[in-house]
């Protein structure tokens, strides 16, 4: 297999302008990945700062209500900054610091990755600039202010569709002009090699912990693990520890928006075709001429026209399955989890909860499944209120 490839997917399809830096990043990552000192420092931060290990919670009321498989929730929403994003950011910023960088930049969709990056930049005393689509700065205004409180400068991106894809475009442009002192903290398992591998490795702690915890609690592996997918970082982090366990179904839940038969969705697996964009060969929503299609989702974090290359590989090889979840289903699951378990999860994570509501009742009671709750939902409360026609001031 070629370097940085997952089957035919992945690669380094990026401007030559960034290659010196990507090769340097790859070499530095290889070095620190096997450096016990680096791992110790990272473990310490994950434990004392991020609050790991995160809980594996048995959702008893939900399980009873659905009447099938036992449902466990992996509580990434309880991490510091409120999502799984901190796992990757702590790793990458520690790496950036070792590489002698003084400044970090990042794209963000829902703002969770931006908040995590701004947080860790503050912790490490580094300059931080975040690029966020104008549409997303409007619908996730709370997170914009959080990032500013943390000392980051937030750029509202007005090019293209003004969402996550365009935030990535702008961050790549900025990086090409500043990599001498700046690291791009890419937020998902996407982009050119080595990012999909780096981000997956830093997120794989989710699955590693889950596998240990479920074996302790149930004495066996789950029948399925579920996670939402945009770029796919929490899903890849959850799946990776289970890839070799062929009896564990790996299920990704993507943004079906208004429905995959309408133009308003971000369902890359259901409706995308192979292509090359943002540094990688993978599946993308695009038109018949290879132009990247505008996508839509109620969830700013899943509103992306592509998916990480390792997911493309897992899907094509039959190892993982991906299902689209509509806005309506996600919002219903968001409300359901709040009432059933007293947990307000991120609208992104609610896509995985929605599929669990469908799947669990079809399963036996002696089986169990794990749903990755990738983030908490405080940021979404105002948007969900609007969705239900309730006007509230944030």
């Amino acid at each position, binding site marked *: 297999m070629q*370097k940085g490839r997952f089957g035919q997917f992945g*690669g*380094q*399809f*990026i*401007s*030559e*302008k960034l*290659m*010196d830096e990507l*090769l340097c990043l790859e070499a530095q990552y290889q070095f620190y990945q096997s450096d016990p000192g680096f791992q110790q420092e990272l473990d310490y931060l994950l434990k004392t700062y991020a609050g790991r290990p995160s809980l594996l919670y048995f959702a008893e009321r939900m399980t009873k209500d659905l009447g099938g498989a036992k449902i466990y929730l992996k509580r990434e929403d309880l991490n510091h900054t409120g999502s799984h994003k901190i796992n990757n950011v702590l790793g990458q910023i520690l790496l950036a610091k070792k590489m002698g960088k003084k400044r970090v930049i990042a794209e963000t969709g829902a703002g969770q990755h931006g908040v995590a990056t701004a947080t860790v930049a503050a912790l490490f005393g580094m300059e931080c600039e975040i690029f966020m689509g104008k549409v997303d700065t409007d619908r996730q205004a709370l997170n914009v202010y959080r990032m500013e409180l943390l000392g980051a400068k937030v750029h509202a991106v007005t*090019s*293209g569709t003004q969402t996550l*894809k*365009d935030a*990535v*475009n*702008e961050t*790549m*442009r900025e990086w*090409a*002009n*500043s990599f*001498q002192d700046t690291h791009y903290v890419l937020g998902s398992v996407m982009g050119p090699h080595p990012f999909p591998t780096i981000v997956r490795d830093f997120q794989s702690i989710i699955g590693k912990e889950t596998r240990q915890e479920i074996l302790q609690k149930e004495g066996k592996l789950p029948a399925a693990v579920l996670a939402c997918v945009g770029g796919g970082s929490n899903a890849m982090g959850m799946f990776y520890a289970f890839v070799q366990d062929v009896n564990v179904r790996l299920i990704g839940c993507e943004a079906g928006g208004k429905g995959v038969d309408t133009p308003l969705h971000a369902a890359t697996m259901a409706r995308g075709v*192979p*292509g*090359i*964009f*943002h*540094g990688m060969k993978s599946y*993308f929503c*695009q038109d*018949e*001429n*290879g*132009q*990247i299609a505008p996508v839509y989702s109620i969830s700013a974090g899943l509103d992306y026209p592509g998916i990480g290359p390792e997911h493309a590989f897992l899907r094509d090889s039959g190892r993982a399955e991906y299902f689209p979840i509509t806005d309506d289903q996600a919002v219903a699951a968001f409300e359901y989890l709040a009432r059933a378990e007293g947990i307000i999860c991120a609208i992104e994570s609610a896509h995985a909860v929605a599929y669990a509501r469908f799947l669990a009742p079809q399963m036996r009671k002696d089986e169990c499944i794990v749903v990755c709750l990738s983030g908490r939902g405080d940021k979404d409360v105002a948007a969900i209120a609007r969705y239900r026609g309730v006007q509230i001031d944030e």
Partner: protein
Amino acid sequence: MSLQLHGIEGFKSMSRIQSAFQNGKALVAFLTVGDPTKEATIRSVLLMEQAGVDLIQLGIPFSDPTAEETQIQESNLRALRNGMTVDEVFAVIKEIREKSNVPLLLYSYLNPVFHYGYERFFSRCGELSVDAVEIADLPFEEKEEVSLVAKKNEVDIISVIASSKQKRIAQIAKEATGFLHIIPAINAYTGIALERELEKIMVWIRKETKIPAIVDLDIRIPEQAKLAAWVADGAFVLCPYIALDAWENGQADGKILQYMANMKNTLQEC
């Protein structure tokens, strides 16, 4: 003369790309096909040739040109809104080729080419005498993606030099075809440091290859083109965007002729 001699001796005659570097320091100009219209693109190419531009790079519009600044993205999006597709770009080239033999190369992101089909794309390039193709997101590591099919259709793939490391520059230069497109990290150098860096890059390139090299310095005024011509074999410039109304009221021709002629004159002085 040399053309004939090569022919008689059985060598491949001088390619159009080689001939573009026979007229002093070369002026290479870029424009996005279909912005503001198809007709304007054809007219611009003919005007640029008349003004002394040696090699014209035609950009296939792409929704998300991440290697370029947003100004180029806007140009791409205008062209896409005008219905520009890869087939339409080839139609434009066909019309140009009926009127001009100016050296032409295409610039694209990989996805539109991938979608069109590599074989179909490069054979069409061959048929229409497109001399070379530069792909924005195809670094040395990934060049096998298209190198065989391009070679089969006798289309050069243009390599970009953006590294500051001798090892990488040598690696790329050694296998380069057509000409080399140098894009230095201009933000990293100020004043004389940039000139020194470019001179160093040229020394490293010349150890590996004799093919010409041009420098892309985000040139907006003729003065900036001097540095490119001083250190290398030519300069890369963007054709200035001319709005639709200037085309309609007849001001466009003069603007393009004057802009490009000034650039070429400056290069001739070097």
